[in-house]
């Protein structure tokens, strides 16, 4: 093991964490402020990726594809909120789980009908498709650098939005005490629609960032949604800061586990046992972390004020 490899794996973990953050930010807002368990968040991730793939094909540019797909995904989110989810706020979590699970099936079937079962590839411009030498001997894919930059940019923008603006104040107030801000005369309905639209756009953005790496396909949202839920549980539901830190922790733990666990285990057991045990164990690591956090701090690492 060399320092170059360690650095590269650190970047890989960071990149996965940033991607998870994009997905988890919207999820934690919707769950924390609207008290809505939205399993269909992964569907918005998928829809964003499909729309971006189509627009990239039509405009011939990945940049335009993303810029146009963002408002489109937000619009899909707003429509879903206004038509389907609005009726669910007063219902208990089980009803919400059932209804949003139904939405997953709906969106999966919809994408299959519209885009076909074979999925799509998002072509990248040549300057993004290669890799850069960040240090002598350390090559890193350009596009993964872009994901890190976009994720950090979104995190900064969200920080400004949540901490420095009036909307942000309402969001924080909503996360702390939903009933009270309604009683104070804030138009909860509009706020909820806006938050859901924002969450949808962020989920879509995550899909657009993942699409060029893993291909766009039906059901791609479910694979990553579980990890996003792990992130918001560890970070504290409703907290953007918690989602950011937890996403980075989960991304790093997952990547480092995949990278070095087999080496560590082979010190303790035979090589052939280590190579089958390592992937199983590294897949469990983040869940073990979640269980540990839940045991010692059930409210998560950074819960919003008023929820400690």
């Amino acid at each position: 093991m060399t320092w170059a490899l360690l650095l590269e794996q650190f970047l890989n973990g960071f990149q996965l964490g940033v991607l998870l953050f994009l997905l988890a930010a919207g999820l934690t807002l919707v769950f924390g402020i609207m008290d809505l368990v939205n399993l269909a968040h992964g569907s918005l991730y998928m829809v964003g990726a499909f729309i971006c793939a189509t627009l990239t094909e039509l405009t011939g540019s990945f940049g335009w594809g993303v810029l146009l797909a963002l408002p489109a995904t937000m619009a899909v989110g707003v429509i879903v909120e206004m038509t389907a989810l609005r009726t669910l706020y007063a219902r208990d979590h089980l009803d919400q789980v059932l209804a949003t699970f139904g939405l997953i099936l709906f969106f999966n079937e919809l994408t299959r009908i519209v885009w076909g079962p074979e999925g799509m590839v998002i072509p990248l411009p040549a300057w993004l498709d290669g890799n850069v030498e960040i240090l002598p001997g350390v090559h890193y894919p350009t596009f993964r650098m872009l994901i890190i930059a976009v994720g950090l940019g979104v995190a900064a923008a969200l920080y400004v939005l949540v901490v420095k603006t009036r909307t942000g104040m309402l969001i924080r107030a909503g996360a702390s005490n939903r009933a009270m801000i309604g009683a104070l005369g804030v138009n909860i309905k509009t706020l909820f629609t806006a938050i859901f639209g924002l969450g949808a756009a962020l989920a879509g953005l995550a899909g657009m960032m993942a699409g060029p790496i893993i291909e766009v396909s039906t059901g791609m949202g479910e694979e990553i949604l579980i990890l996003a839920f792990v992130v918001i549980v560890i970070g504290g539901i409703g907290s953007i800061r918690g989602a950011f830190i937890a996403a980075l922790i989960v991304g790093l733990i997952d990547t480092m586990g995949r990278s070095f666990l087999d080496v560590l285990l082979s010190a303790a057991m035979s090589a052939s046992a280590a190579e089958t045990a390592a992937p199983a164990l590294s897949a469990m690591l983040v869940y073990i972390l979640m269980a540990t956090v839940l045991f010692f701090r059930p409210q998560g690492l950074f819960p919003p004020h008023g929820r400690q």
Partner: protein
Amino acid sequence: MTFKKLSAGLVAVLALAAVPVQGGTVKIGFVTTLTTPAGVIGRDMRDAVNLALEDIGNKMGGLDVEMIFEDDGFKPEIGKQKTDKLVQKDNVDFVAGYIWSHVLLASRKSVLDAGKFLISSNAGPSQLAGKLCNKNFFSTSWQNDQTPMAMGEVLNQRGVKSLYVIAPNYAAGKNMVSGVQRAFKGKIVGKDLTKWPGQLDFSAELAKARAAKPDGVFIFYPGKAGGAFMKQYQQAGLDKTIPLYSVFTVDSISLPKFQKANMSGVMGSFMTQFWAPDLDTPQNKKFVAGFRKKYGRYPSFYAAQSYDTVFLIKSAVDAVNGNLKDMDGMRAAMEKADFPSVRGKFTYGNNHFPIQNFYLREVVKDSDGNWTTATRGVVLKNHQDTYAKLCKM
């Protein structure tokens, strides 16, 4: 109604129920993946089965064919449920299909314990070829280890001395790894088994492979994961430094997508397989031409094996003239492998896996500019899997 009359009625009803439905149909259940990102594979298989049924006029041994497709959702437990449903509720005569080794292993008992025929149209787990072999199980594909063994031979021929292996952590992935390890004479410098089917981002594994500086990287990633892997391999710049050798990763399903995304790194890459769209046998010419005419795309190997499945079953039902109760007769007919196969003439081993050739294939452009593969010679001739000797049958 007296008790006597009642019991007489009951007996009559029971007697009726006991009479087999001789409506002149042979019922076949076909389990594949129709949802999830792998659904595109299932579509190819279903299309091939439907084409085969059309080609035989939907008749086998004078009986009409009723084909029931079921979706396993890429999950062993669902595959087993659907298999149970086919066997118990639909009372099918044959159960066929199965893309995934872990799904087939989970569903195996439901069919074989009921005394029905089980035909694998793709999955070839080592267990079913060896200790768990069964007189009523047949394969129209290959045993998992065989194709990577052929690739191991190719690596030896090309003078590859060190190899990095990356494959998914499930039944077939492990078979693929053991297959290439068995045939490859050089050194395996690193090995990663990844979470299946969830993991699609291979950044950590690619970084390790690069650091290990091997002569080549060997992978097995069927379906969507393959496309993701190839793309990330190229983005990491590894396609320019370390040659990639794959099995079941580049196929007729992924090639059009690669072409659309202009992933030129795939062009000219090699793989091994028992079949190729350009294989020169009469049945294959008919199959590929028919498939391209009907569906407007090249068939994949999944489709080829599914097409063969229908003809294998037909050979059994034809041999007994539609008398589906004659299991021994049908089994004997299938053991002869006496049907027009897309791979040409082959024989069955004692474990009912084909003894067949494996070819080297290269990704090329066809005359219309579509990306496809061309055969570049035989790597293994009449090859039998290594587990056959463990099969006591």
